[in-house]
């Protein structure tokens, strides 16, 4: 592999890490509250409101049912509004985040739903309000699942970011298609695959370690 290609590989790794990390973080910041809202407004939840729950659920399902490649193109006006351009790595972060947020919201919802209702009742019996229940019970008790779900989301984002090449975002997927596939540079293809494997394994390993440390459920 030539030094030029190697430099290109390094840049692509950075672009992938940037896209995955930034959109992952955004999906965490918006997805977790959405997940909380989903269980809080559901039947028997701490802020039961079935119509809010239905609307939220429908919107989330709507976003989740659009294939990412279509979302990528359809969101171009939104991207332009937020980032100022619809091309490049930063521009890709917008559709990636918008796709990952409802995905992560559902994953977080599953973990939060598993929190024993008795614990919520105990917090209420202690005089806790909704905020107390969220801060002291729901999030800490679901944290292992929330972190494990975040790991899954990050790995999914690594894959999804490959498609972002379609709007000139670069990244490892883009490199593999343009050089490895279209120019028959097998060494590039192999290098990209190896880097992706290392990246995914690394994310999963860190995630698993973190979950093990956080989980006191015995």
């Amino acid at each position, binding site marked *: 592999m030539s030094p030029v290609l190697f430099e290109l590989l390094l840049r692509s790794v950075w672009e992938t890490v940037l896209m995955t990390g930034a959109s992952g973080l955004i999906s965490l910041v918006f997805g977790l509250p959405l997940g909380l809202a989903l269980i809080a407004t559901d039947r028997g939840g701490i802020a039961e409101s079935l119509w809010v729950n239905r609307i939220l659920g429908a919107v989330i399902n709507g976003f989740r049912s659009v294939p990412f490649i279509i979302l990528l193109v359809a969101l171009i006006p939104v991207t332009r509004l937020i980032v100022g351009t619809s091309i490049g790595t930063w521009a890709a972060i917008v559709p990636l985040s918008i796709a990952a947020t409802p995905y992560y919201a559902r994953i977080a919802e599953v973990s939060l739903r598993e929190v024993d209702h*008795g614990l919520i009742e105990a917090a209420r*019996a*202690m*005089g806790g309000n909704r905020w107390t229940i969220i801060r002291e*019970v729901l999030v*800490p008790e679901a944290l292992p699942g929330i972190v494990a779900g975040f790991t899954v989301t990050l790995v999914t984002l690594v894959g999804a970011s490959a498609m972002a090449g379609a709007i000139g975002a670069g990244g490892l997927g883009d490199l593999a298609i343009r050089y490895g596939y279209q120019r028959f540079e097998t060494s590039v293809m192999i290098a990209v695959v190896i880097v992706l494997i290392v990246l995914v394994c690394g994310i999963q390993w860190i995630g698993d370690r973190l979950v093990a440390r956080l989980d*006191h459920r*015995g």
Partner: protein
Amino acid sequence: MNQHITAPAEITDSVPIARTEDVVRLVDLKRRFGATAALDGVSLTVRKGEILGIIGRSGAGKSTLIRCLNGLERPDSGEVFIEGREISRLGERELQPLRRRIGMVFQHFNLLSAKTVEENVALPLKIDGRPRPERLARAAELLQLVGLSEKAKAYPASLSGGQKQRVGIARALAARPALLLSDEATSALDPETTRSILALLKDINSRLRLTILLITHEMEVIRSIADRVAVIDAGRIVEEGAVWQVFANPRSEITRSLLGGIRPQLPPEIASRLAAGEGAETILRIDVAGEAARGPLLSDLSASVPAPLRLVHGGIDHVQNQPVGTLFLAVPGADTGRLAQTIAFLKDRGARVEVLGHVAGPV
């Protein structure tokens, strides 16, 4: 003009003293779930410093009842007075400070797995907005009270069931409540651990003068620690009174059935041979309690009725330091005069006597 006039406390406090002595007063509480009435007109008072046990089978309405006391459940109608204040129509926000006055212990402990023992115990104080040093000091104090000081930094998952419940009790006491609610606190524990948890509750009750209301389906729990008992069935209180009196003289069928496990019963092999009419022996059931059970009842009986009476089964139990006895006596022969004499003597001594039937041969 701006001078503050502070009225003396006894004048501002218009609630009669008799009422403030009742920590809890329930008036005609009703709650339905669909077609079933979980509470069907419950009226009850819990006096300051006592342990009131509410017993009933599962589905009798116990859990709904105890949850009405801290507003986790709302009655359809009726009133709930906690320390003289009606709470059943308060909003969630108004209930929150009030719940801090009421500790609650749960059957499945409900400890937070992500928090250490110490953090669990300190949580009610954190909710109350107290500073961290105060919370930790109080947690340490309570962990010492329940005998778990060395587990302060451990996580609940590493504790045994009994230890978890001790943490649950410590947590319920953290905010210095006026009332402790115990929701089947020992039902998930083995008999030995149950005894130690009950002893702890009793100790807390007498040391801190803390009022305790507990619900259970086990008479043994009532017998071990309760001062008074209320029996609930199909959403109604069917019987209420001092524990030893209810044990000595259960009035309802449900109470007798709940007592069945811990009070002497006629052995089935004798019961199956009982017949009406004549027989070689007559089997009597004698219930005697309190003063009546202290004297030399049986020796007095045999001195006054010259017959070879036989004690078939039974015994004297001590409930709340009161003797509560049930004896099964066999009176021989067809001599109805002797039988009548025996019954008259026992009734005169304050015992309740029931002729269960006759047996053909000796049992």
